[in-house]
């Protein structure tokens, strides 16, 4: 019985490995390989080996550096806002109040709506003439009347960050809430007896106990934010300084696939994005501490 196990396990795992090998790993290696060539999907352009030429070209491409900068700004700001607000919201919904279950359920709504669709909803709210968010910001004197939020450099990126924060914060809060519920009540009672006030209890008990949960959520969100595509594509198509790495990469690969020899160049950018995200993925896996048996 015991001897047969590895063989059965092999057959049970094979389909999964087969699918991800063909659909994920093979294309990934192909991308690495293609990044050393200059070619197009249009056979009119000859395929030539260029070595590291595409990478050298990429590092001299100001549009690449701008996209990298935008991606980093987007990631740092949205992930920090989501973590801080998420922690605050988690603390609020952890309290006792009426309809608590319903409120927690409602918090899943922004996460459940497809990003492409919620981005359209927000695009309508940011409409310069008829958008309710535009009216709201005008009333608060944050913007001048008639400002096209999604058409202004700087403002547009903030709007995109706002949509991402809207979508992800409640979700982050629910993950943190799950961590909060695991903290043993005795810890708080003991602290109360010792005379610790609310703020002391937060910093001495809640925060340290939550650190693992927050760390996982944080790295995981960073991974996600670095590859952001949907919200940017729908809100601005990457115009007015909102182009992120993924958006630029799709332009190179698809928009120019048949009109210029930029497929190899696009592949080089794909590789760079992959390596960038791998760094965080490795940290993530280390944090998860994969343990079996």
């Amino acid at each position, binding site marked *: 019985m015991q001897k047969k196990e590895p063989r059965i396990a092999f057959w049970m795992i094979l389909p999964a490995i087969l*699918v991800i090998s063909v659909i994920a790993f093979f294309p990934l290696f192909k991308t690495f390989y293609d990044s050393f060539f200059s070619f197009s999907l249009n056979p009119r352009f000859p395929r030539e080996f260029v070595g590291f030429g595409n990478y050298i070209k990429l590092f001299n491409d100001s549009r690449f550096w701008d996209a990298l900068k935008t991606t980093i700004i987007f990631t740092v700001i949205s992930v920090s806002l989501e973590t801080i607000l998420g922690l605050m919201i988690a603390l609020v919904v952890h309290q006792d109040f009426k309809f608590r279950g319903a409120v927690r359920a409602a918090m899943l709504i922004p996460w459940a*709506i*497809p*990003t492409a669709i919620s981005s359209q909803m927000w695009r309508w709210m940011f409409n310069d003439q008829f958008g309710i968010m535009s009216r709201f910001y005008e009333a608060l004197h944050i913007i001048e009347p008639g400002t096209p939020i999604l058409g202004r450099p700087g403002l547009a990126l903030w709007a995109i960050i706002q949509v991402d924060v809207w979508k992800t914060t409640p979700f982050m809060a629910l993950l943190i809430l799950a961590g909060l519920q695991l903290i043993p009540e005795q810890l708080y009672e003991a602290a109360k007896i010792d005379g610790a006030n609310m703020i002391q209890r937060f910093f001495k008990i809640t925060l340290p106990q939550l650190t693992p949960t927050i760390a996982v959520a944080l790295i995981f969100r960073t991974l996600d934010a670095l590859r952001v595509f949907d919200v940017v594509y729908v809100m601005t198509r990457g115009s007015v300084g909102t182009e992120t790495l993924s958006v630029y990469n799709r332009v190179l690969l698809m928009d120019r696939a048949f009109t210029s020899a930029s497929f190899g160049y696009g592949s080089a950018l794909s590789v760079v994005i992959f390596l960038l995200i791998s760094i965080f993925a490795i940290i993530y*896996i280390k944090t998860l501490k994969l343990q079996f048996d």
Partner: protein
Amino acid sequence: MNSKKIIYRFVLYFLVAIILIWCIFPFYWAVVSSLKPDKDLFEINPSLFPKRITFENYVKVFTERPFHINIWNSIVVAGITTIVSLLIGSLAAYAIARLKFKGKVVVMSLILAVSMFPQVSILGSLFVLLRNFKLINTYPGLILPYVSITLPLTTWILQNFFRELPKEVEESAAIDGCSRIRTLWSIVLPMAAPGLVATGLLTFISAWNEFLFALTFMQRPEKYTVPVAIALFKGASQYEIPWGQIMAAAVIVTTPLVILVLIFQKKIIAGLSAGSVKG
């Protein structure tokens, strides 16, 4: 009640109200906008409630464009993805949770690594691969990539569920001479049914919501899935965006999702905590 407690209650309910409005408002606003006639919709100071209600936008979504076809595309693609992903995923998950073999950590790491792939990194090569097999603009051309990107999540959550099941039942099945596959099919899976439902729901939602692959591999309007169709809604002219119709379409497809999420919230949260999930 002392005054301190009253202030606490007041602040608490105030904060809860803000959180609730924050989460629901965009959806609410889509509903309101979709019900307004164009004259009220394009008004400088929009009213928070529709003054007049019309279902014109809902009719136009189906008469002026093939939105019902887009919905069908999404149902087929997300549905088949979910079934295939659960089938393949539960096999792998069971082996990882229950069987002894070498290289388990390597296998799980390989599968998990895929969930961290930036999708755009394989976009170009995958497009070429699918094009060579004439799978662009076909259902399999989208289902295959979706199975591959949902498998890590399915496998990871399912193996967590399998681990929590009592081992004794399986052991007695083994003594009765049941094969591993039969044990999985007729004993483990029925016991893990709640886990399967939660996992299936998460898989379905992530396939239903996917945008980048759908945008790239489905290039004809009658092949678009719902998110792509809504993101690329065009008006009569280049400068005219049919906002009323966009909002109506958005409401049509998000309402079932919202209801599903409200019903299954406990299961979803349990599944999400078992393995962090991308949205």
